[in-house]
């Protein structure tokens, strides 16, 4: 789960990571009142889970009440790379002497946490990594040992931070590592990490990704999820315990097992089609899970045809066939379905489908054949 900046800063504050004081606002009036309380100059910041907010005009400085209202009006409802701004964070403007970058990430290759520090903060770190890789100091931490003071010193000296802030920057990294471990994050990133003219170190931004699998141990964090921000189809799927990712095409896809579903999307794309979703019905799917899955797929109005690609292992093909027959009884779909059943109890499953004689359902025996058929059917439906 990705946190919004202000949520990340609230998490930071719990671990003594210094952040500018600020308030959350959802309307122009709330933002202006918050700005009056905080005092001027202050900064009005769009709260969306995407980078590049500043460039898009989603971060504005206000020097008085009028400018605060103007900024809030401009930013609320703004579209930033496909996301609409519904929330603002209003915070005291900071004086900046230097902008650094700091992060703690899960390094999959090394299978260890990786701490990074750079004096080239305030810009896209992927660009810095490309153009000037030596500008980023990196250090893996043994998770059994944890972050030690010497780790902080090494990073600070290697990144060549100003000599007078070696100690406080090291201490800041230790606190960010605390956030990473204690909150079970997979990413903690601060860009920029600023040095004020008074030589204080502060987190001016906060990007935190929490491990969904660990939220059961962090009920406070679990409550930060705002279902209204999620795509309605994805939310519906989550409520039914299905793994669903919405895509922008018109062919609904259902399969069992993440790898097989990904592969099905690819094979459909190679056949000239465009998948509308990823849906993994999971191992051992029973008939009712299949019925729910059909409902989720068809709730996307773009879907013109649906492909079922099942290779039964623990999942039994006869259960899948029963689920599909039940779904037709309940929903009466108007789009064509192509069904490919292979593996455990495939003969029984195909037999059930043949007997049910469902309208507009085509069975195919191979994955490639099924993909070609569904692409042909989707193309035949008038847009």
């Amino acid at each position, binding site marked *: 789960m990705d946190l919004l900046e202000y949520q990340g800063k609230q998490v930071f504050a719990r671990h003594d990571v210094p952040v500018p004081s600020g308030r959350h606002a959802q309307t122009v009036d709330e933002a202006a009142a918050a700005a009056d309380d905080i005092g001027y100059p202050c900064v009005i910041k769009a709260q969306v889970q995407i980078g590049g907010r500043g460039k898009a005009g989603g971060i504005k400085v206000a020097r008085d009440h009028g400018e605060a209202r103007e900024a809030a009006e401009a930013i609320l409802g703004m579209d930033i790379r496909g996301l609409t701004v519904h929330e603002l964070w209003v915070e005291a403007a900071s004086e900046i002497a230097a902008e650094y970058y700091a992060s703690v990430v899960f390094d999959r290759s090394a299978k260890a946490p990786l701490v990074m520090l750079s004096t080239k903060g305030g810009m896209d770190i992927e660009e810095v990594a490309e153009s000037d890789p030596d500008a980023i100091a990196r250090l893996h931490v043994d998770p059994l040992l944890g972050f030690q003071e010497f780790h902080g010193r090494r990073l600070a000296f290697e990144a060549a931070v100003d000599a007078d802030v070696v100690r406080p920057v090291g201490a800041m990294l230790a606190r960010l590592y605390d956030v990473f471990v204690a909150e079970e994050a997979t990413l903690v990133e601060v860009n920029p990490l600023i040095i004020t003219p008074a030589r204080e170190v502060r987190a001016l931004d906060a990007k935190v990704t929490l491990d969904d*699998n*660990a939220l059961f141990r962090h009920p406070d964090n679990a409550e930060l999820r705002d279902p209204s921000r999620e795509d309605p189809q994805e939310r519906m799927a989550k409520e039914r315990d299905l793994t669903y990712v919405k895509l922008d095409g018109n062919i609904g896809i259902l399969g069992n097992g993440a790898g097989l579903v990904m592969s099905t999307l690819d094979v459909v794309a190679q056949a000239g089609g465009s998948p509308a979703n990823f849906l993994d019905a999971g191992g051992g799917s029973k008939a009712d899970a299949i019925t729910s899955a059909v409902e989720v797929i068809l709730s996307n109005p773009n879907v013109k045809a649906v492909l079922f690609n099942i290779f039964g292992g623990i999942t039994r093909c006869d259960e899948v066939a029963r689920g599909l027959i039940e779904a037709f009884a309940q929903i009466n779909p108007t789009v064509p379905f192509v069904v490919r059943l292979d593996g455990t109890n495939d003969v029984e499953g195909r037999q059930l489908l043949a007997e049910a004689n469902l309208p507009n359902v085509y069975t195919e025996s*191979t994955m490639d054949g099924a993909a070609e058929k569904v692409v042909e059917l989707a193309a035949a439906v008038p847009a």
Partner: protein
Amino acid sequence: MSILVDSNTKLVVSGITGREGTFHSLRNRDYGTQVVGGVTPGKGGQDVEGIPVFNTFHEAVDETGANTAMIFVPPRFAADSILEAEDAGISLIIAITEGIPAHDELRAFSVIKKNGRARLIGPNCPGILSPGKANVGIIPAAFFREGNVGVVSRSGTLTYQIGNVIAQQGFGNSTIVGIGGDPVPGSDFIDIIGMFEQDPETELIVMCGEIGGDAEERAAEFIAENVTKPVVAYIAGFTAPPGKTMGHAGAIVSGSRGTAKAKAEALESKGVRVGRTPTEVAEVAASLLAAAA
């Protein structure tokens, strides 16, 4: 020959008294695997259709001489169970459980690596099948028969799909290893491919990768340096958009990293044949084997 599991495997199952644990332990035993015990704290002294249940891994190892563990407990207990098996001296730990917290996984992996006496396969994997010898996990054995193709995969059902097409072409498998779809797998492609290279029965290696991480790219380097046997690869997720987790926790394209295209190119640049579809992978594998025969 085969790798990792065979007729010498003596398996103890953590979570054997749960519904799924019981079902798959019995299926594994029916296949011929020596399932010598189970572990469920508080249920020591009971049995599951004749398989003795112990309170601790230590007891199970002392009583049965078990050398392999299968982890079937729910995610919040799984890392602890892995660590208990390692502490009890089990040398091969196969973790089926999906959804283990990442920091738990990292800690368990770090302990195993530091102590250097056990190998972890998974978590979030379908297990290991050596056809005709032993099945540990949830792979449906009926689709596979003995042969000389070694398969290593991040995905379960995709493996069945490819294995099935290979079987239809008349070839069998030495061992099928599911390394799992999590960000921190206990064993990587290179660990398993290295074992297949050493295994006299394996004549060809099929690897099934997917988006996310750089395990496939590292495998490409490893193959170029260390592997003499032919390797055929498949990568799933060419159409996956960046920033979206495609079912497996580990299957995510972050920025420009971890794309299927980059992985396929890395493998092809080292002479590995990459099939565009699961069917093509199986066909390429079959044609290479037929040419060698």
